[in-house]
């Protein structure tokens, strides 16, 4: 029997090898304190995993799917019955999108342009579900949106309300 789930992906975390948070996207409602606690716990769990282990960790009633790309860990929490192997592909696709947008993306890009990392994620996933499976379309939407951002003059001159 199926369990009606609240989201396929419950949250996504990006953090460095020193455990510094670079992005947090939550698709379920939790108090801030709870989020901080979860982040600390999960970062600790994943950073202590060695090379010989799988990419999946049973955590509470969820599964953590994680992968390290260069100096950044990408971690997705999914429902227990979801397809872990596909989630690895989801993570990989996100990295590809970042790479396509930034050109040879590295951690510094994510640090200095964190809002863009969020915008890209939001073009790829909504409410914990994938919305676009074409790399080209997702990145194009961001680039087009970027074009909509006003120049300084436009920004200053346009009325606020």
């Amino acid at each position, binding site marked *: 029997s199926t369990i009606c789930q609240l989201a396929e992906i419950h949250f996504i975390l990006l953090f460095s090898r020193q455990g510094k948070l670079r992005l947090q996207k939550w698709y379920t409602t939790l108090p801030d304190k709870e989020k901080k606690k979860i982040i600390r716990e999960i970062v600790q769990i994943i950073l202590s995993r060695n090379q010989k282990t799988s990419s999946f960790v049973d955590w509470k009633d969820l599964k953590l799917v994680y992968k390290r790309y260069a100096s950044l860990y990408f971690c997705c929490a999914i429902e227990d019955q979801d397809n872990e192997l596909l989630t690895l592909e989801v993570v990989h696709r996100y990295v590809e999108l970042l790479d396509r947008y930034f050109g040879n993306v590295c951690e510094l890009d994510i640090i200095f342009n964190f809002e863009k990392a969020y915008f890209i994620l939001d073009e790829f996933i909504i409410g914990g579900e994938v*919305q676009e*499976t074409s790399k080209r379309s997702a990145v194009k939407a961001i680039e087009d949106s970027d074009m909509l951002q006003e120049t300084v003059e436009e920004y200053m001159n346009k009325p606020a309300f």
Partner: protein
Amino acid sequence: MPAPIRLRELIRTIRTARTQAEEREMIQKECAAIRSSFREEDNTYRCRNVAKLLYMHMLGYPAHFGQLECLKLIASQKFTDKRIGYLGAMLLLDERQDVHLLMTNCIKNDLNHSTQYVQGLALCTLGCMGSSEMCRDLAGEVEKLLKTSNSYLRKKAALCAVHVIRKVPELMEMFLPATKNLLNEKNHGVLHTSVVLLTEMCERSPDMLAHFRKLVPQLVRILKNLIMSGYSPEHDVSGISDPFLQVRILRLLRILGRNDDDSSEAMNDILAQVATNTETSKNVGNAILYETVLTIMDIKSESGLRVLAINILGRFLLNNDKNIRYVALTSLLKTVQTDHNAVQRHRSTIVDCLKDLDVSIKRRAMELSFALVNGNNVRGMMKELLYFLDSCEPEFKADCASGIFLAAEKYAPSKRWHIDTIMRVLTTAGSYVRDDAVPNLIQLITNSVEMHAYTVQRLYKAILGDYSQQPLVQVASWCIGEYGDLLVSGQCEEEEPIQVTEDEVLDILESVLISNMSASVTRGYALTAIMKLSTRFTCTVNRIKKVVSIYGSSIDVELQQRAVEYNALFKKYDHMRPALLERMPVMEKVTTNGPAEIVQTNGETEPAVLETKPPPSGLQPASQANDLLDLLGGSDITPVIPTAPTSKPASAGGELLDLLGDLNLTGSPVSAPAPQIAQPPFLLDGLPSQPLFNDISAGIPSITAYSKNGLKIDFTFERSNTNPSVTVITIQASNSTELDMTDFVFQAAVPKTFQLQLLSPSSSVIPAFNSGTITQVIKVLNPQKQQLRMRIKLTYNHKGSAMQDLAEVNNFPPQSWQ
């Protein structure tokens, strides 16, 4: 007023901080600047300030004072503002703050904006964090957008609808019309999100599920096109076209095909095709195969397809990639019940996974291994699992131990093997064994009658070296208390019997009592064991008395109480001590659920036994009893007298206390007010439950077991319906002399191969002139159906002097034991 520092500038500055304190200082300074900027209602730099705030929020600093500012940004006309505003709302706001509702109107406006990217922002925000109220207010807008021809918006609207349904399930119906043509889209984004929406609706509503079954052929077609189509750079992943969409379609097919023959048949071919043609060299192909296997196993697929699926899982198990092995084990665990034989074929690979370094893989391999144990492979499997128990992480040990006990109980090839396995678990993982395992093990050991000597010897040796593992020590203490006589008399047949003296046995039990490592419960076990040995040991009774009296002033209340009661047993009730501390009977078969049942069983059989029909010769007493009943006002023929010990909350070792507790609940029908007439006790104290025993008039002849000096003891017999090895003997002692016999105690002993249980006597006074009897029930367990023999010892006071006699009873009728 200089312009506020730019975002990237701030990030650069903060990153130069060398200490946490330095960083905090920078942040506080900037926050102060931002706050004053907010207070000044500065429109120009609001966006920049909120962006900075979001960065600091990510570092872990509070940013709630920016919540309202996000709302102002969302309301702005500038796209830049809206982008940051919506991002801020998603990061800083959620449905638990009332302020979030202020967004509703802005979102509504933006959902109707002329620029699709603004509409997109609104849809995204609503779909990620919309509260139930917001969803209710805006569902209509979402539904409109679900019907737009703009695929960029349509795909977002679909996921927004999914979120609305998750938050407010009652709204699901309104999206039904819009789903009509969703699958006709060519756009993959819309297709994917549509499949997600349909899946959500089907999972939540059986009606929707039935309604959407007609989509199966279309879904199959779409899937087929994906597989057959040539290379499409836009959706390609390592040579596979849009794996995300393929997997979602497979999942929807699973839901539609479940429990439906027609649908399952319609998708049979495509599943076989995907299963055989998907490239397995990369993770993406295996992700699709995995989903395919899950679908095959869940729908009503042909057996050939099922075998194909299990074989795919079998191949997964051999894959070098740990992730693949992990999902294989997970799936096999799901299918092991339904496709047991197919999974059995992969047993050795699964067992190998027990040695994997990955904790999640080990856990699954362990669970799967237990699921695969059966009568044929139990020896080999247990060997592997015991080895696993030895070396696994502590987090597994409790579950593993429990699993081994369960499997051993179900499939043990011999009692010796069973005991050995239990021993092995207790000695290797002794401190991880669950508390409820102890009473179960005790019951198992008790019922393995022929292994008692061996078991107690092994347990004794086990705790000699180390008595720190509590469950092990508890079981060992109990066994030593119970079978200590076998231990010192060196009766072990299974292995070389050891030479142990009574003192040595008491030494170890006393060590357990004294040790700081012993839990209170364990001490209780040890003390009771020592007490029980007082009737099994011959030379050390004084030592035992001493130990018991010392603990009468223990600060541990539990121990103190026990010691005080045992002391009382020595002092005032010494004649009852042998009966009370008698060997435990074979317990009725209970489920492996713990002590409560065991106690109940013992309790139940007592009154049931007493509830026997009177012997034909006893018709007179019966009518007398009826008269008595009328006197007592009982309208029933078999009144209920609450004497039976009901299931007491059994603490570990509690069942022994209950035995002593029976001191007060002797099922004594001789209620004080009633006159001393010959009352057949069975009518008065029996519960009106279904008799377990044959009607006596089925005719096992009774015997006079003893007759001397005016004391006559008759035995009447019954055989149990449920257990042919059990014979119930009811003794009736009568006194033909002119003076009462008081403090009467009847004791019995049987040969080794039998077991005896003596229940409480009806009283200790045999009135003179045959005017009354004492009755007592003996239960004899005779598993080997040997000829019944008994030695009895009688003690009583008569005419001012203490009397004692020993006799043998050899005239048991064959029907009582054959």
